């Protein structure tokens, strides 16, 4: 058995592994990074960019950052990185604004309950979904009393609301209120009744034609002219109404796109079954139209959520508004980058998870139409 060369009958040799260049990571790199001269140059350029940006950013962001200094100058003496101390020290303020400290558990509770209320709406497979759904319907009332007080809880003025709490409050209420309004506007725009149609078109085009910021200005300066003399209602409520109207007009256009994509046969079939307008829309047309328009609807919601930052311009204290007052403090002057990046991370996490959820929902509702 000293002979190393084995002999095989034709066709019995076991398969050899593929050559090194066409398997594993080498093959992957050849195909995806160095497939041509241009691609090689691009890859090297990209790698160089990453080499330039990422280590420097990491140094600034975490390695050289200071978390527990008492002031800006102390930060800068200790290290050259980010001064996160400002966020640590003012964290509570960025979260709750000027909501009374001893009552903040109510905000926390409302926030936790929000997830309980959202669970049955967002996901199918929640245990006890039917009972939770009832909770989802009463949740807005509970949240209202938790945040504003009343019913035995100490009342809190909405002028004291602020920080991320305000962002979530405006964002979530805007989303909940604008969807039904958007559907109604979309149906109105497609209605056969000419008066309704014209009114809806005018409303939608007006709202879509002007920037949100001008609508907010109207809410803060002009609305008092339009209401009976002496009436004065909450600025936060006015903002909520404007944000809702704004989002509803955009939603209406998205949903209209979905309605237009439904083949005429669906309407005719429903009518020939003797369904009334509302039954036809509610049972046949809208479920299909909404399914098609999910990506657009979620995009509008993300836009609304981001637009909540504009309330700072009319003086509400959302995180951006609070950051202005923090930056005016001589101890923390000039740390705008740190605060803004912290706020950006918060928005990125919420908006990115919303867009992920929309992809999940699209896949779930695709029930075999995808090939």
């Amino acid at each position, binding site marked *: 058995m000293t002979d190393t060369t084995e002999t095989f009958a034709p066709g019995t040799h076991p398969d050899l592994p593929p050559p090194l260049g066409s398997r594993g990571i080498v093959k992957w790199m050849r195909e*995806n990074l160095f497939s041509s001269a241009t691609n090689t140059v691009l890859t090297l350029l990209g790698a160089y960019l990453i080499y330039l940006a990422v280590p420097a950013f990491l140094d600034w962001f975490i390695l050289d950052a200071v978390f527990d200094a008492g002031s800006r100058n102390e930060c800068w003496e200790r290290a050259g990185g980010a001064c996160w101390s400002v966020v640590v020290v003012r964290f509570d303020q960025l979260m709750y604004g000027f909501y009374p400290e001893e009552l903040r558990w109510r905000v926390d509770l409302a926030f936790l309950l929000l997830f309980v209320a959202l669970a049955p709406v967002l996901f199918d497979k929640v245990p006890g979904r039917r009972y939770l759904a009832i909770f989802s319907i009463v949740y807005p009332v509970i949240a209202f009393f938790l945040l504003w007080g009343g019913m035995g809880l100490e009342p809190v003025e909405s002028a004291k609301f602020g920080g991320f709490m305000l962002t979530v409050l405006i964002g979530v209420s805007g989303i909940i209120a604008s969807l039904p309004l958007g559907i109604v506007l979309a149906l109105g725009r497609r209605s056969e009744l000419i008066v*309704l149609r014209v009114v809806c078109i005018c409303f939608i*085009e007006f709202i879509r034609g*002007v*920037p949100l910021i001008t609508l907010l200005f109207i809410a803060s*300066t*002009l609305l008092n002219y339009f209401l009976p003399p002496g009436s004065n209602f909450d600025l936060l409520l006015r903002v909520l109404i404007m944000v809702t109207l704004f989002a509803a007009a955009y939603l209406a256009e998205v949903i209209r796109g979905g309605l237009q994509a439904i083949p005429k046969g669906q309407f005719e079939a429903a009518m020939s079954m003797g369904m009334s307008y509302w039954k036809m829309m509610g049972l046949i047309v809208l479920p299909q139209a909404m399914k098609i328009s999910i990506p657009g609807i979620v995009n509008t919601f993300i836009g609304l959520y*981001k637009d909540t930052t504009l309330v700072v311009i009319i003086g509400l204290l959302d995180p951006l508004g609070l950051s202005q007052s923090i930056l005016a403090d001589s101890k923390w002057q000039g740390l705008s980058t740190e605060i803004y990046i912290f706020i950006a991370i918060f928005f990125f996490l919420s908006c990115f998870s919303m867009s992920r959820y929309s992809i999940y929902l699209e896949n779930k509702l695709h029930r075999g139409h995808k090939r």
Partner: protein
Amino acid sequence: MSAIEYQGPSFKLEDLWTDRRWRAISIQILALAGLFAFLAFIVNNTINNLSLLGVETGYGFLAEPSNYDINQTLIEYDSRSSHFRAAIVGLLNTGVVAIAGIIAATILGFTVGVLRLSGNWLISRIMYCYVEFTRNVPLLLQILLWYGIVVHSLPRPKNALEPLSGIFLSNRGFSVPAPVAEPAAWAIFIAFVIAIAAAIGFGQYAKRVQEATGKIYPVISIGLGLIVVLPVLTYFLSGQPISLDWPALRGFNFAGGMTVTPEFVALWFALSIYTASFISEIVRAGIQSVSHGQTEAAYSLGIKPSWTMRLVILPQALRVILPPLISQYLNLTKNSSLAIAVGYMDVVATIGGISLNQTGRALECMSIVLATYLTISLVISTIMNWYNKRVALVER
């Protein structure tokens, strides 16, 4: 066998609601009545409120002097100019930042959109990160972030950064050389126009030759060459009539040249980077919407890849890309109203901001601002609808 007697159109009052045809009319009349009642309510309240407050109304204040300064003006303006002129200055500033933003966002967006589809894994991942990070962060935050970077992170004018000779970056803005034209400069302009006309003419000639003989001229490089070479040649022949005014440090700031304010820089960067991420997704979707069979068919006809892109893919993709692209341009224009957050004097900040606060004419000022934006967006969307109808796929 008795014939059923025709009863005649007997109209009962409840038909107004139970009969489909009558109901349509009654609903509309009710809606109209409700609308008018609502409008009357608002108008009535407004009149009452105005008379209670004793506020004067009318647009006469537009002719009065504005008494405030604007730091970036394209036309002549000082604090003695009228409110109306201030509004025009603001409108022009909106236009400048919108056009600059649209150009930058288009270039960046198309580049990123194409690169995201590249087969290069690393590059497409980098672009994916860029898109996700910019479009999931509020625009206002990005504007403030860029403003903070320009104002706090750039050095004072004394030690300004000078990336290229004559261009200074400092916390007072970007100072760049300004072109100063002498009278003879019109020759260059005429040369430029002639060059464009010649390039178009050559393109048509080349097309005719190609259709007749199949011979292909390098139209793009010759055309671009004409457009570049001819004006440059005229520039030297006419004795260099355009000179540059270089910025120089004098005292605490730069004098001479052209200064781009930090507000403009922040707004322009943020608007273009934010909108570009949306445009890149539109471009990607547009290119992906052209079925792969088109590429394969072009290749099998022997058309080379760059021509396939230009002659087969792009014309089909553009039909999908254009409508959402234009609506992004509109969004950018409307978003430029966030300028007020950093104090860039656009139309909202001038007539809707300082003028409003000085005169107290909230109704008038806001109506001007609203009318401005409505006009812009209605005009653009009308043009867009017309164009859309023209290029829409005719299905047979």
